[in-house]
């Protein structure tokens, strides 16, 4: 004991400790749930689809220019804006007044936006275009019919 404790009135001094074993075991009364030790949180879709919540947005596809990549009209796209728009990724971009979803390709200095529906043709982004990348599509939520 330290000296600072000495002024406390009537403090019990414990000089010898006797260790008494404590049997931590439940008395069985009825049938215990065998599942009790296996309960975990239920699976959360957010956990699967979102790695970076601050930078993730949901976006609605309204066209079928990417149906070759199984993005159909009405699907919800999970878009992560923290990811780099690397070669060949499906991205959301702003081009001349509207947002669009396409696969991005780089040819030397140029950006080419490639649809996966053969009815649409690729778009070459020129120096005069108003172009900016919004984010990268990481999941496509499609309602099965």
């Amino acid at each position, binding site marked *: 004991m330290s000296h600072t404790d000495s002024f406390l009135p009537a403090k019990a001094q414990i000089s010898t400790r006797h260790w008494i074993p404590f049997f931590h075991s439940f008395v069985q009364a009825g049938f215990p749930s065998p599942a009790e030790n296996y309960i975990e949180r239920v699976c959360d879709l957010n956990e699967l689809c979102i790695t970076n919540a601050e*930078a993730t947005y949901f976006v*609605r596809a309204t066209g079928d220019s990417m149906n070759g990549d199984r993005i159909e009209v009405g699907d919800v796209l999970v878009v992560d804006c923290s990811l780099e728009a690397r070669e060949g990724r499906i991205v959301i971009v702003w081009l001349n007044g509207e947002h669009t979803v396409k696969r991005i390709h780089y040819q030397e200095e140029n950006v080419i936006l490639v649809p996966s529906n053969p009815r649409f043709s690729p778009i070459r982004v020129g120096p005069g275009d108003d172009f900016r990348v919004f984010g990268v599509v990481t999941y496509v939520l499609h309602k099965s019919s």
Partner: protein
Amino acid sequence: MFGLVDCNNFYVSCERSFNPSLEGRPVVVLSNNDGCVIARSNEAKSVEIKMGTPYFQLKDTIKEHDVRVFSSNYTLYGDLSARVMATLGRFVDQVEIYSIDEAFLDFEGFAHLYPDLHQLALTLQSTVRQWTRIPVSIGMAPTKTLCKVANYFAKRQAENRGILLLDSPERISEILQEFPVSELWGVGSRYAALLRRNAIRTAAQFSNAPDDWINRTMTVNGLRLAYELRGVPCKMLETEFAPKKAICTSPSFGRLIPDLKTMSEALVTHLSRAAEKLRRQGSAAGTMTVFVHTNRFKRSANGQPARQYYNSRTIQLPHPTASTAELTGYALAALQSVYQFGYAYQKVGVILSGLVPIDHHQTHYFTKGPDERLAVLSATMDRLNHRFGRDKVRLASAGYDVTWHHRQQWMSPAYTTKWTDLLQVK
């Protein structure tokens, strides 16, 4: 070192976040009920649109300069604010959310991680920009007050590109000589006038004034301000959640409504919202004030200013409560006592004050404590409304007529909080 991150023209930037066609154009956001201008893009500022101008006075300017007008979309602004703040929290562990668009950061203990603060500020700025598309200005300095000063210049001097680091005493004293004392954090118009009378015009002159003179004329708060300007921190980060001390709701009516029934319904709806806020922060209210007033600018048919009326009544509740049903009873009684027939009312509002923690019960001699069942009822209503949408479950006295709700003609989609409003891509 501290940092102050401030979102530039925040509401406008939120609108631009999902609509880049607004870049480079004059954009304004209007207050609740589309009343007056509460946010302006730099382009709107440069065509001389003033803060607080009523919308109807702007019609010509809007036409002439093709100004884009928006109703305030607080769900969108709130979500983007939370994203900005959470993004900042990735870099430092002490973030004080000072307002919807401002946060203080504490870099204490991060010197080994971020030896180059300017580089860190650039990273913060570009990360927030990429993740939320919101532009921010960052001021860094040894005290919070100096951060405010640094941010002021970061934003206004183009060469700083939104970032200003004040880390040497020479730099600080140089910049304080250019800083008007009236712009200092915590100096209101009254103190500004007092300082002007004493020939103190710049922050530098103020920080060099004698301590005892400052203490005598501006109390210890003035002295703290002077210390902060000299680089001695007196204000620390307040990262603890501080519950509000009073809650007020009083949106204007979309149109003027004279009858007591509609006003009662509006009041109960506002009150339900306020009580929800109260419960969310774990408080109960001990005092309630109900007020009504007419429109100051309204003119009667003969062109004379219309008759004006303002009244309010404050009620000391028998015990603090957060129950909507219980508060409603008192609010309606208060409204009846201040309502006068024959006026064109513009506002009915309620202020809940005397807030205490909800588990705090003062035993009273003559009144029983709050009815536990009412608390359960309110909590159940909150859960249902959270799950199925606002006001799905409400008191019958809140009514079904929504015509008095505010007018929001130019509301942008709630891109991040409503499945039907998501950003659309082709």
